[in-house]
């Protein structure tokens, strides 16, 4: 044996010791962030869900600004959404009739059943017909009263009363018997 050189047994023992030590060190060389990622995903999903059920999803713009009310009850989402903006009447995301610049006399006479004095808006009634039929089938299947439907009215704060009444009257004629007038909660108004 050469001077200063250890035996093969000692050499192998030292090698095993070093291998064990290095293998142990590798276990802690990264951070396990899976739990944090799970938590963040849950928070993100919760936020998106809660925001989608609030009015944050409603189109608030210069064309549609909802009125304020002191009411603080939960908003009902049941029914066909009918939007009355400054420029259009929209049913279920489809534009059904334009709103004239001066809407104090309601929708233009050509869109009504028998002229300007009538309250029945024909394109609106036609748009509601399909929705009403679908809702009737759903109500029959779920054991609810199929004779009437509900509507959620989202109207601009400056909508003249005449235009509002024309929309509500047409809804009533189309077998919608209950309206949920959507407003912004403003307890300090």
């Amino acid at each position, binding site marked *: 044996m050469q001077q*200063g*050189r*250890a*035996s093969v047994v*000692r*050499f192998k023992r*030292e*090698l095993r010791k*070093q*291998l064990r030590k*290095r293998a142990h060190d*590798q276990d802690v060389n990264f951070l396990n*962030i899976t739990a*944090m*990622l799970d938590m*963040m995903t849950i*928070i*993100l999903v919760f*936020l998106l869900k809660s925001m989608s059920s*609030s*009015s*944050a999803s*409603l189109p*608030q713009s210069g064309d549609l600004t*909802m*009125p*304020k*009310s*002191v*009411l*603080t*009850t*939960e*908003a*009902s989402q049941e029914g066909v959404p009918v939007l009355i903006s400054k420029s259009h009447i929209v049913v279920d995301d489809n534009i059904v009739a334009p709103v004239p610049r001066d809407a*104090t*006399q*309601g929708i233009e006479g050509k869109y009504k059943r028998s002229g300007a004095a009538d309250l029945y808006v024909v394109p609106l009634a036609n748009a509601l017909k399909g929705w009403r039929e679908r809702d009737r089938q759903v109500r029959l299947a779920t054991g609810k009263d199929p004779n009437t439907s509900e509507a*959620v009215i989202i109207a*601009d*704060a*400056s*909508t*003249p*009363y*005449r235009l*509002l*009444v024309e929309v*509500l*009257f047409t*809804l009533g004629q189309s077998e919608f018997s*209950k*309206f*949920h*007038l*959507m*407003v*912004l*909660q403003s307890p300090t*108004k």
Partner: protein
Amino acid sequence: MVEDRLSAAQRNKIRRLSAPRELSPDEEGGELNIVPFLDIVTNVLMFVLATVSVTFTATIDSFPPRAPTGVRAATAPTLGLTVLIVPDGFGVKARGGNVAPGCSGVGPGISVPRKGDGYDYPALRECVTQLKASSPDFSTEQSVTISANPQIPYQVVVSTMDAVRNNPRGEPLFPDVSFGVAR
């Protein structure tokens, strides 16, 4: 027995053999590095929270407008409250008659006139509270018909509904709203 010492060459060999093996590019792909993704998600989350203005909505339940029929109301003593919104204020009708200005007795005129630039909602609430309290027969009545001139804005209609819904103590006055159509 004296333990034999490792030579420099042996120590070198041990160091070389026990060094962690460099992973090939194929082996490194075993775990996805999601830290940059996490950074982006956190930034997006902060941005969304900072920019979205959360607003809360409520819904007021109401029923279809009724065109005037000319038929007299039932003979049972009911208040049959109607609030007519006109540009000059509120006209209040109860028991088939027009409530006089100042909400006292029956007579022609605007029951609750405008106050300054706006409508006098506290006075309207006071008036309907007074009307409801005028007879025990009206204590269970909760329906009101609201009508307005064609040009009255929706916000005024909503504020009128708010005014007649509860009295100042929070007790219900006329929460069931129907809309009327002016003849």
